[in-house]
């Protein structure tokens, strides 16, 4: 999706607001949203669907609202789409919801959530029968066009020549995972020279690395 979220290389966003403060949360509501997102996620969804739902936020809200606020909006959208609540329920705590009669989930202690964080080290890779199409050192070219759905090939790296740096194994393919379909496909670290990506980087020694799935790539010599 050529959405507002695809920010790599876009211009006009000004200097970085460097903030030496390392406090994780600056407002109580940020901490609540963080904790909410760790405590529950809409049953049955995938991380890629959640990301896509965040990408679908209207551009003025995506850019104009604080970061954790966009998490809350995304959570609302995923729960509403899946039927757990309606837009009209918001701000009406008396609205009787589906699932309201079920026992609430147990209260976890600090030790239990630390355990859970450890067990949340989810892997996204799997063994597949196919052999990788590309080998380390091979020159590849990325797809020229995106599509309307979720993808992890950013606009700035489309139709560009790069070099396979590593094969990371077969990972869940996000473009389909965002539609609830789980297939695994080889995912490669691909190196691009800065001057392949940016006109003003002519002569630069700098490099940009992206992790890209096999179907985003073709052999550059074909």
């Amino acid at each position, binding site marked *: 999706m050529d959405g507002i*979220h*695809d*920010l*790599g*290389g876009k*211009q006009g966003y000004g200097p*970085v*607001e460097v903030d030496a403060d*390392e406090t*994780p*949360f600056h407002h*109580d*509501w940020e901490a*609540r949203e*963080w*904790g*909410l997102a*760790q*405590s*529950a996620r809409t049953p049955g969804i995938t991380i890629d669907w959640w*990301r*896509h*739902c*965040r990408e679908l936020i*209207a551009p003025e*809200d995506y850019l104009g609202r604080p*970061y954790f*606020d966009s998490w809350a*909006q995304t959570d609302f*959208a*995923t729960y509403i*789409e899946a*039927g757990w609540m309606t837009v009209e329920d*918001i*701000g009406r*705590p008396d609205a009787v919801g589906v*699932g309201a009669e079920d026992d*609430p*989930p147990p*209260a*976890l202690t*600090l030790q239990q959530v*630390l355990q859970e*964080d*450890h067990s*949340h*080290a989810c*892997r996204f890779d799997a063994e597949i029968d196919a052999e990788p199409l590309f080998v380390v050192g091979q020159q590849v070219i990325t797809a020229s066009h995106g599509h*309307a759905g979720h993808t992890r090939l950013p606009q*700035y790296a489309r139709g560009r020549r790069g070099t396979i740096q590593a094969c*990371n194994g077969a*990972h869940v393919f996000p473009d389909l995972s965002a539609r*609830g379909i789980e297939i695994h496909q080889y*995912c490669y670290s691909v190196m691009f020279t800065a001057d392949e*990506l940016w006109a003003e*980087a002519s002569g630069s020694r*700098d*490099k940009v690395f*992206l*992790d890209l799935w096999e179907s985003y790539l073709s052999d550059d010599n074909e």
Partner: protein
Amino acid sequence: MSSKFDAGKVAEIHQHLHSHLPSESALRVKALETLLVDRGLVNPQTIDAWVEAYTDQIGPKRGARVVARAWMDAEYKKRLLQDAPAAIDELGYLGKATAHLKVVENTDQVHNLVVCTLCSCYPFSILGVAPAWYKAAAYRSRAVRDPRGVLAEFGVTIDDDIEVRVWDSTAELRYLVLPQCPPGAEDLSEDALTELVSRNSMIGTDRNLVKS
């Protein structure tokens, strides 16, 4: 009740939410928490525990410990560069978003910088909650295109003969920069070394650490 993965419907929902949600962030999050508690999906005490975990227990001190150990122990560093998830798990730090961690090493010739241009991917279980600038449009848009300019805004000047490698976290792989040990610090204890490692040096927006 399950998602139909209907993007068109979600775009419509966002439009409704735009006009329907309370005006302040705090009220929006409160409304969400209230509904999720009501629906039996969340226990508020569990939220408290997660906040406590990522305020007091899980944060950049973990990453700093990993870096300090790699500086002290060449064998550990080797394992860290080869199989970072296993190496951080030796310290019990494997967790959220680090199952596919990769460690990239700074040298005299190379400086590494990490970004997520498409969202805000970050190795939570070793660095905690990402800083605000990491999630902001200015950093996400410019880190891949003008890394040296971005670094200058952090007070970091990179000599022309050093190669800058920018890692855009487009997959579930996450990156931790292994900064260089400050000159003269080689003989310090692991605890003392840990104090020298800044959070930003592990993202790549800091480079020349100093022995304090």
